[in-house]
């Protein structure tokens, strides 16, 4: 099923893994990403994700088009202009899919010709929260879908010495506790940043099940960490792959 499992480390990539040894998978992500590996690492399929992490983590439907977007974003030879263009497209798709996780009610409307269309309606009063800085890249995508949505921000910094993540700044709409929250953070490699951010949200009275995490690239380790810590939170990502494109924020904002 999973040909290049996350446990594969370079030369072992072709090793077929029937194993569900999570321990091994987790340790593998601490590998040194510096050396170029002979075989490409393959990301997890939706079935594996469902089996391994439960149904609260969802993958964007991986069609060829999405695969191309992922490829362009990961390619180190992609120009910055292309990178931003295609990243924005992927973000748009992820946001659209995240919005699908919001609760809705049935709603019948009358069409101009007088027929009744059995549609549905989303509750108003959602809000977005982006984790500074790379999460801000996703704000525009959210605004393109929901014009007047309120957006809060959290700044999480990791200490240079201890690598401990801590929240430096957080600003939310006052009534965030009564809203559905779309938490935006594109790259998760350890998941620590998101843990801190969700904790802040909970301190502000947001129930865990009201949080939807929009993410582009996630490592299996991060997925495991976050799912374990917050089993009720919904997570939407486009790819579960042992190596996260950590250059995302740098390249998107042009500070590389």
């Amino acid at each position: 099923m999973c040909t290049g499992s996350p446990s594969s480390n370079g030369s072992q990539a072709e090793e077929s893994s029937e194993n569900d040894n999570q321990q091994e998978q987790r340790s593998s992500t601490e590998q040194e990403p510096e050396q170029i590996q002979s075989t490409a690492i393959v990301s997890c399929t939706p079935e594996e994700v469902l089996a391994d992490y439960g149904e609260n983590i969802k993958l964007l439907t991986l069609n060829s088009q999405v695969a191309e977007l992922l490829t362009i974003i990961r390619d180190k030879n992609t120009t910055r202009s292309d990178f931003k263009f295609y990243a924005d497209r992927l973000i748009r798709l992820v946001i659209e899919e995240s919005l699908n996780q919001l609760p809705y009610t049935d709603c019948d409307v009358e069409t101009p010709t007088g027929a009744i269309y059995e549609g549905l309606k989303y509750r108003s009063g959602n809000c977005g929260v982006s984790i500074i800085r790379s999460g801000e890249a996703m704000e525009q995508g959210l605004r393109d879908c929901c014009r007047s949505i309120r957006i809060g921000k959290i700044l999480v910094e990791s200490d240079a010495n201890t690598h401990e993540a801590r929240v430096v700044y957080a600003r939310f709409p006052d009534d965030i506790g009564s809203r559905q929250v779309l938490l935006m953070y594109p790259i998760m490699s350890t998941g620590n940043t998101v843990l801190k951010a969700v904790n802040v949200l909970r301190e502000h009275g947001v129930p865990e099940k009201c949080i939807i995490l929009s993410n582009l690239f996630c490592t299996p380790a991060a997925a495991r960490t976050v799912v374990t810590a917050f089993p009720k939170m919904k997570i939407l990502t486009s790819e579960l792959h042992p190596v996260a494109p950590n250059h995302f924020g740098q390249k998107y904002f042009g500070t590389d």
Partner: protein
Amino acid sequence: MGSELNCCPASPTTVPAKSAFESPMRRSGRRQRTTSIGNQTTTANPCEGIIRSNNRTIYTAGRPPWYNCAGQQVEPFVIGICGGSASGKTTVAEKIIESLDVPWVTLLSMDCFYKILNEKQHELALINEYNFDHPDAFDIDLLIDVLTKLKEGRKVEVPVYNFVTHGRESQTKTMYGANVIIFEGILTFHSSEVLKLLDMKIFVDTDPDIRLARRLKRDISQRGRDLKGVLKQYLNMVKPSYANYIAPTMAHADIIVPRGGENTVAIALIVQHVHTQLQLRGFKLRETLANSYKDQPMPDSLHLLHPTPQIKGLHTFIRCKNTSRDEFIFYSKRLIRLVIEYALSLFPFKSTCVETPQGVLYEGKRMESRKICGVSILRAGETMEQAVCDVCKDIRIGKILIQTNLKTGEPELYYLRLPKDIKDFKVILMDATVATGAAAMMAIRVLLDHDVPEENIILASLLMAEIGVHSIAYAFPKVKIVTSALDPEINS
């Protein structure tokens, strides 16, 4: 253009045709297109609002369907006109077009197919010793090729011959789409293969004295030649050639028109015959479409967007009659974006391996070809253009204007502008809604006539009626159809 608009009827189908044709054409005089209008437009029948041109291509109102409900071509009617030099062939052709009153007529002249002369022949031509009236002076193979393609309804590039340099201009004239083709020239009946392509053969027989008189007048005043040279050419080449090659072909003619263009009785007879022939080939497309394919399973070429709650929610907004225009546009745009993203995923992809900044290889996919272009069906399709531009950098956009004739209910083609090498492109054809599919079918037919392979076309639409899907899928099974929702029937 203003004066012509005045004599134009208030019919909504004819007014856009005029402005669409004329405004771009007049300004860019050098561009020659099928849809172009010559510089001497006259309105023969103001009630019909038909535009006439003096010499080349004549398009009038929109073009009704030229294919049957299976999307297959109905062959255009080809009229061949033969006759000696200056016998009045062109006049006869123009009179026929005028009286026919059929839109989408193409006039093809044999003069376009003169061979390119080498230096020696060019010098001979300058001293009036090259025989332009001999069959060898024409590129018959090219002629057959062009005429065959035209008859198949395909787009062709017709060479433009320069009588000064005796070579072909680098620019060619694009001819596309005609229900009637009129092919005229001095040796149109010479080649037996050309003869086979002609549905009707007319020989214009004019008295040699009159022809010589006309020729003298034309060559001296319009082509700047001297009397001596013209006479020499006439006696040495034109006259013998007429006797040897042109006059004998009179035997092939279905009808011989004496006195050329003045012979109104003969022209009336011809026109009557052509009308009968066209009626035999005609059909009502929309009716056929609406009556077929009931209770059939959906075809494989239909790709419906995965119905997520969001998409349903968007549809709720779009369909609700109380939605404001602003909201309607906003939510349609979101939906269109999703449709286009999905359509792109249907193009062929190839696997690649790329290096990442993290130092690992990443196995991904890239689109096989970057050559994608969008073609929108005006007006509704234009709303989707922005979305295509948003997802494909620097994409080329072609446009096709198809309007429904309010009287007959048939779609009519008014205008088209497509990227130059569209046959090399993958095409996303856009129309916001597809009801019976008549307009979309016409647009697909246009693309096929421009040599775009059927499998390279994706039809993207917000909303489609089942009937439209069936018609299109039946006629063009390889065209992929992408839409966000399927309705049993459409309500604008």
